[in-house]
C-alpha cells in the first residue's frame, strides 16, 4: 500500500476511536460540569457496559443483530442503575466534596474491576457484530460496521445536544450547572438532577462500550485507556463545552490513530499525556473553554 491509502486507513481507524471517545468523554464532561466532581470510575462503567453486552448477546440466541440490539438497550440501562445507586449510597453522603468523591470513586473503580474479574474472568471475549458488510474502497475493503459506529455516535451526540439546549430537562441541568444554590431556591430538585446526571454520564460510557465491543473485545481491564483519554479530551475541550469535547475527541482520536500507525503506540500515549498535562498547567480552562466563574 502507498502512503496515501495507508494514511486514509489510519484516519478511518482514528475516526472510529474519536466517535467512541466523544461519547465516553461527553459522559465524563457532563458529570464534571454539572456536579463539579471527577468520576475516576467512569472507565469502569465503560468496561461494565462491554462486559454486560457480551453477557446479554451470548444469552440471546438467533441472529447476532437481535442480541446486539438487546445489549445496546439493556446494558446501558443496567449500568445507569448501578451508577444511580452508587451516587445515592456514596456520593450524596459525601456532599459532593471534590477530594472525598475522588477517593470514593477510586474505591468504586477497584470494586467494579474486581467483581468483573471474579464473575467474568480474565479472558477477552468478542461480541459478534450485528452485520458484516464490507465497503470496498479502491485500495482496501473497510468494515461497514465501523462506519456505522461513527454514524451512531454522531446521532447520539446531536441528540444529547438537542436535549441539553432545547428541552426543559436540559434547561434544568444547565441551571444546576450554572448555580446550584439559586437553582435550588427556584425549586429545582438538585439532588435528583445530580443522580440523573451521574446515571446518564455512566450510560453514555456504556453505550460507547457496547458500540465498540464488536470491534475490540470485552476485557475487565479495558476501562483504563478510555478513562485517561476521556480526561484528556475533557481537559483539552474545556469543561462543560459540548462543542469543545467533540472537537477534542476528533483531534485526539485522529492523532492517536495516525501516530500509533506510524510510530509506537506507547510514544503516542506519552506525547498525548504530556501535552495535556502542559495544557492543564499553562491553560487550565482548556483550548475551547471559557474561564469558569
Amino acid at each position, binding site marked *: 500500500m502507498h502512503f496515501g491509502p495507508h494514511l486514509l486507513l489510519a484516519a478511518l481507524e482514528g475516526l472510529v476511536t474519536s466517535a467512541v471517545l466523544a461519547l465516553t468523554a461527553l459522559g465524563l464532561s457532563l458529570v464534571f460540569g454539572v456536579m463539579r466532581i*471527577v468520576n475516576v470510575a467512569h472507565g469502569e462503567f465503560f468496561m461494565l457496559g462491554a462486559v454486560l453486552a457480551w453477557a446479554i448477546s451470548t444469552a440471546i440466541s438467533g441472529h447476532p443483530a437481535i442480541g446486539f440490539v438487546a445489549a445496546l438497550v439493556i446494558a446501558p440501562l443496567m449500568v445507569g442503575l448501578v451508577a444511580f445507586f452508587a451516587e445515592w449510597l456514596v456520593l450524596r453522603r459525601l456532599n459532593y466534596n471534590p477530594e472525598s468523591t*475522588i477517593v470514593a470513586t477510586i474505591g468504586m*473503580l477497584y470494586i467494579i474491576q474486581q*467483581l468483573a*474479574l471474579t464473575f467474568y474472568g480474565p479472558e477477552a471475549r468478542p461480541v459478534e457484530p450485528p452485520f458484516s458488510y464490507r465497503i470496498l474502497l479502491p485500495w482496501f475493503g473497510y468494515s461497514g460496521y465501523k462506519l456505522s459506529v461513527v454514524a451512531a455516535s454522531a446521532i447520539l451526540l446531536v441528540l444529547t445536544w438537542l436535549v441539553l439546549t432545547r428541552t426543559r430537562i436540559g434547561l434544568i441541568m444547565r441551571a444546576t450547572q450554572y448555580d446550584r444554590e439559586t437553582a435550588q431556591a427556584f425549586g429545582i430538585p438538585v439532588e435528583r438532577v445530580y443522580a440523573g446526571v451521574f446515571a446518564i454520564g455512566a450510560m453514555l460510557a456504556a453505550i460507547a462500550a457496547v458500540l465498540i465491543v464488536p470491534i475490540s473485545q470485552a476485557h475487565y481491564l479495558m476501562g483504563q485507556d478510555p478513562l485517561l483519554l476521556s480526561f484528556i479530551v475533557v481537559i483539552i475541550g474545556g469543561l462543560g463545552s459540548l462543542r469543545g469535547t467533540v472537537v477534542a475527541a476528533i483531534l485526539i482520536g485522529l492523532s492517536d490513530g495516525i501516530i500509533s500507525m506510524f510510530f509506537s503506540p506507547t510514544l503516542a500515549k*506519552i506525547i498525548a499525556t504530556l501535552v495535556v*498535562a502542559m495544557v492543564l*498547567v*499553562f491553560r487550565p480552562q482548556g483550548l475551547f473553554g471559557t474561564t469558569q466563574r
Partner: protein
Amino acid sequence: MKDVSLAKTYALHIGIIALLFVLNFVLPDYHQGLFARIMTLAVFAMGYNLLFGYVGLLSLGHAMFFSAGLYGAGLTVYHLGWGVPEAFVAGVACGALLALVIGLLALRTSGVAFMIVTMMFAQVFYLLILYFAAWTGGDQGLVIQQTSRALNFGSTSFDLTNPTVRYMSALALFSVVLFITLAVVRSRFGRVLVAIRENEERTRMLGYDTVANKLAAVVLSGTICAAPGAAYALLFGYIGSSFASVQYSILPLLWVLLGGAATTLGPLIGTLFMYYVTDITSGFTSAYLLIVGVALILLVLFAPKGILGSIRQRWLGWLP
C-alpha cells in the same frame, strides 16, 4: 503543659521504634520479612502524608517519586555496578530532582487540576519506563543480584539479603524519616504548611510565601518517597514498572487515610493494618482489590480522620 506533651511525644516515638527493634527477634521468619517490607512502604506513606496530611495537597502521582528512587538506585547498581551507598544517594537525588520539576509545574494548578496533573505526569513516567524497556526491563522488571547488594564498611560487610540486616536497615530508614517528620511538623515551616492547608489566602495575607513553602513541601515529600524506593530496590532486589503504576499512587493515599492523615504514626499504622488485612483475607479470596475499594469508600464515608486521627480527636489531644 507543652513540655509534658513534648516528653510524651518523644517517649511514644522512641517506644514504637524500640518495640519494632524487639520484634525482629520475636517474629517468625515470614512475619519478619513482611514487617521489613511494611516499614519500607510506611516511609513511602510518611512522605505522602507530609504533602497530603499537612499541606492538604492530594497528589495522585506519588508512585513516580517512589519509582524514581527505585530506578535511580536499581539501574545504577544494575548497569553501572555502583555500590549500595552511592546507589541509594543516586535514587534519592533522582526523586528530589523529579519532585522539584514536577512541583514547579504542578503547583501552578490547584484542587482537582492538581490531582489530574500529578496523575498524568506519573502516567508519563510509567510509560517512559515501558518505552525504554531495553534498559529498565519494562513490565518484566529487573532482578538485582545478591552479590551487588552488600554494604561494606571498611573490612566488615553486611549482606542486605540477610533477613536481620534487611529488617534493621528498614528500621533505620523508618526511624530517621519518623524523626525528620516529627521535627518538620513541630517546626515553624511545618506550622506554615498547616496554615496553608487551613486557609491559603489568609496565610498569604499574613506575609508568607505560600508558593515557595508548597514547593519546599513537594520536594521534601518527593525526596522522602524516593528513599524507600531506593531502599526497596536494594533490600528486596527487584525493580519493575508496576511500582510506577497508578495503583502505587493510590496505595499510599489509602494507607494514610486509614492510619490518619496529618499524624506522624498514622502512615505506619495504616500500612501495617492494610498489609495484614490483605494477608489474612488472601487466605479466603483472591479478590484483594475488592477489599481496597470497599476500605476506601467506608473510610471516606465514616472515618475520614482515620484510626489515629479518631483516637487523637477522642482521647489523646497531644498526639503529633
